[in-house]
């Protein structure tokens, strides 16, 4: 066999462009099957639309349309009312991977890496060979720019196939993206429908108009007329900077001294802290940043860790708020109990973040099988890779049995319950570029667990109350059941007539009802419920992604109603305590109950 020389082999090695890389590894971006690809493309386009509108302080109105062209070919059209994009930027934003405005800054926007939408273009081009069509208009009275774009994968640069100016009648400003791609549209879980619905839940300030491939139009109107507080950009916190990044920052900074570098490039570093860092790193504050070698940078990095620096500011992130979260749940689920909780801000790797959690319990939810989880990061629903997500493991490692749900060790709790968790941060750590699962930072998992415990405690008190009510209802049933027997026996022994027997029954009812007080009722009391809305994305289908955490065994919910055999408590008359009058009387499905004033 002929041997090859190193020189010959070296000829084969060459640079890999990022586009080429993702062309081959499109699954890393979530484009691993036609069904999911459709969803991811919509998600990336909608994320960008919302970010653009919010940045420009415009209440978003996003129009999403999916048109089926062939059996497995779709056209995706996403149009927003955002500020538009100037012509020069359009090609790079849409047709160059890793180009973006959000990567280099820290703020709680949806997009962060500058990959998403270009990846959608790349995928469309790969599966149909067609360019994407981008139209953008920046102001009323100006012409709109229409560009047909492809990505040159070997150079990771845009190819402009066609460009023209058009009148975009009736549009003040905004951007429209049209991509043809291979896809598969199925309703139900993990569909575009579900994604848009969940997005609407956590973005109540946005309106979505969605036309699905079956030409059904669904409108999710905005629920609040106020934009969430602007996503403020912050400088990195010293604790969150790795050595490599620190070295690059030192190279590129405009600061002339180390002291100046520290105070201008980082958040929470004033002159005093900067001096302290320098002292802890054995470096002089007046050193030129560009002259700091790798070794010195390393001691600076260590010095930073040794210095006490206050946590980053948290006004740069805005939670959905517990009230909005609960409202979203009410719209989606007809349950008996809702609650939500927003945690105070936490910090991981120098990045501030906030965890919010909410739950809906009981009502029309499936009582068998594991609970439903809804995960969100910076107001974006996470539909895939549930098993790999920090939210899921935080839920699994929480002791739900204490809060009234069934749970086997380290698995999802069972029962009629939906849990929502939202993480917002200036930088959300995902496990992969496809942004489907949160990474397991201990600080984040801990905060999620604390949030879950807060809502868990509220859940526990409701579950207990419901159980008491159930027992009470049973006792009430008891009274009705056995009063005639008491009367009948007395009639037999004493020998009175039916009229007297009726009187005895009536008196007994008064005696027993009197000692029990008024009835309270729990049940579904949810005027916010939107049945049509709730159905979206809930259709049965067999193609759900098999999640990798084996939550297959279904456990039968334990019946917490003991048989009435045990009902004769001792004759201590303890159930005659004073009772409070009732409160709630609304709702459709109700269990009668009373508040026995205990507990």
């Amino acid at each position, binding site marked *: 066999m002929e041997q090859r020389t190193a020189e010959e082999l070296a000829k084969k090695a060459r640079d890999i462009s990022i586009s080429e890389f993702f062309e081959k590894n499109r699954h890393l971006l979530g484009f691993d099957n036609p069904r999911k690809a459709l969803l991811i493309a919509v998600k990336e386009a909608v994320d960008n639309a919302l970010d653009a509108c919010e940045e420009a302080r415009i209440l978003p109105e996003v129009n999403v349309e999916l048109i089926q062209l062939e059996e497995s070919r779709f056209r995706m059209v996403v149009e927003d009312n955002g500020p538009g994009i100037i012509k020069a930027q359009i090609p790079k934003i849409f047709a160059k991977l890793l180009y973006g405005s959000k990567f280099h800054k820290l703020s709680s926007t949806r997009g962060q890496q500058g990959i998403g939408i270009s990846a959608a273009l790349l995928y469309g081009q790969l599966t149909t060979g067609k360019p994407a069509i981008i139209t953008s208009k920046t102001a009323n009275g100006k012409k709109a720019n229409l560009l047909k774009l492809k990505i040159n994968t070997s150079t990771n640069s845009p190819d402009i196939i066609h460009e023209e100016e058009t009148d975009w009648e009736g549009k003040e400003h905004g951007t429209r993206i049209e991509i043809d791609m291979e896809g598969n549209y199925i309703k139900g879980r993990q569909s575009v429908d579900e994604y848009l619905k969940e997005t609407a839940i956590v973005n109540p300030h946005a309106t979505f108009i969605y036309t699905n491939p079956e030409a059904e139009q669904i409108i999710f109107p905005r629920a609040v007329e106020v934009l969430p507080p602007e996503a403020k950009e912050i400088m990195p916190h010293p604790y969150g900077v790795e050595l490599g990044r620190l070295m690059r920052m030192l190279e590129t900074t405009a600061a002339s001294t180390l002291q100046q570098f520290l105070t201008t490039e980082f958040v929470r570093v004033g002159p005093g802290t900067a001096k302290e860092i320098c002292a802890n790193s054995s470096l002089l504050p007046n050193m030129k940043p560009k002259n700091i070698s790798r070794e010195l940078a390393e001691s600076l990095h260590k010095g930073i860790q040794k210095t006490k620096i206050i946590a980053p500011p948290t006004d740069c992130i805005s939670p959905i708020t517990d009230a909005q979260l609960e409202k979203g749940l009410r719209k989606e689920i007809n349950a008996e109990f809702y609650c939500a909780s927003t945690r105070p801000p936490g910090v991981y790797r120098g990045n501030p973040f906030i965890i919010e959690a909410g739950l809906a319990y009981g009502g029309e939810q499936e009582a068998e099988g594991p609970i439903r989880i809804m995960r969100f990061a910076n107001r974006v629903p996470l539909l895939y890779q549930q098993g790999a997500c920090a939210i899921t493991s935080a839920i699994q490692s929480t002791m739900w049995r204490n809060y009234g749900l069934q749970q086997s060790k380290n698995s999802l709790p069972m029962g009629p319950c939906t849990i929502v968790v939202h993480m917002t941060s200036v930088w959300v750590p995902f496990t992969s570029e496809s942004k489907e699962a949160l990474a397991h930072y201990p600080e984040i998992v801990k905060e999620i667990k604390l949030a879950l415990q807060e809502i868990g405690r509220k859940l526990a008190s409701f579950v207990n109350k419901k159980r008491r009510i159930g027992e009470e209802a049973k*006792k*009430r049933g*008891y*009274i009705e*059941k*056995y*009063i005639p*027997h*008491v009367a*009948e*026996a*007395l009639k*037999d*022994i*004493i020998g*009175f007539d039916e009229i007297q027997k009726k*009187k*005895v029954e009536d*008196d*007994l009812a*008064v*005696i*027993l009802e009197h*000692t*029990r007080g008024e009835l309270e009722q729990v049940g579904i009391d949810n005027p916010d419920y939107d049945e049509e809305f709730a159905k979206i994305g809930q259709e049965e289908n067999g193609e759900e992604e098999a999640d990798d955490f084996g939550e297959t065994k279904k456990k039968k919910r334990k019946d917490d109603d003991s048989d*009435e*055999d045990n*009902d*004769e*408590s001792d*004759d201590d*008359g303890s*159930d*005659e305590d004073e009772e409070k009058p009732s409160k709630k009387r609304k709702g459709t499905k109700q269990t009668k109950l009373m508040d026995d004033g205990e507990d």
Partner: protein
Amino acid sequence: MAKTENPVVGKIKDVAQGIYDKIRKVKAPDIEMPIRSLNNVEYNAKEGYFKLLNKVKSRTLTASTIRTFAQTLRMMSLSKDLVETDDIATKREAYYVSKNWGEARFREQPESDTVMDDIEAMMGVNREQIGFIPEEKGGAVAGELIVIDKDDEGKRLEIDCTKFGSGAYSIPSSVEELSFKTKAKFILAIETSGMFERLHKHNYWKDASCILISMGGVPTRACRRFIRKLADEKNLPVYVFTDGDPYGFGSIYRTLKVGSGNAAHINEFFCVPQAQFIGITPQDIIDYKLPTHPLKEVDVKKIKDLIKNDPFIIHHKAWQDALQDMAKMKVRAEQQALAKHGLNFVSEKYLPDKMKNRKTWLP
């Protein structure tokens, strides 16, 4: 018929009337009944039985008691019917009658038995007097005894207990109407039917001129009443022969002699204060070098419980000492263990010896 109202019927009516009156005044009615447990008895050494104290429980009508309350009343109604028609129902039959009460029916017989016992205690009478009889037979009798009973038509019957061959006379569930003729010198009440068979087979009753009664475990009320009546009327001493274990001492012998907590309201008539315990005592185990079994955990617990809580044992130092000895020896012995010395050892040696020597007995 100008029959005077049975006192039980009167009492049932009184209770019902009281409940009725209270209900019509729109007040929660209650039923009072004595607590039937060892906590509510004292050992009356003079009269020789467990006497009921005056602790009562009151079952007030509430949502959680209404089911039992209704059942108690229905059971009282059934009892009234039975007494009025001079009929009887077995405990099991009463349980089945309740199946006709719809929602108020009993699910298991123990439920109806408890309600029955409550009514019995409430009325302060024996359950035969409220029309209910148990299924179980009272025990087996062999020996020099003629039981005088009546047949269905009320004709006098004389039953000779020597004429049952290898079988035995069976004590009926109700013994109040019986009378006796006997020349026997004593009654020997035996725990196990196995030992009874052995003594019967060897004609021990003939040799010792006695009446053998097999209790078959804890003696039934009928058995206790039969022995009591027979001993009282014919002025016979009663000797008790059980296994040498805490169950034989504390459950079988004690219940026969002084009654039980559960039937405290009727102990006065359903006990045999003249009974004497002849064996097997812990000392016998040593003296006769009997083969033994180790005490089980329940035995140890039972010993502790007897010493601590049983008013009869607490009254008798000799019993406490015997139980302490057994606890220390950590063994128990069965009646049949005497067979180690030969099958006839029990009738030829053990019983005659024990009978002669009062000092080997326990009170």
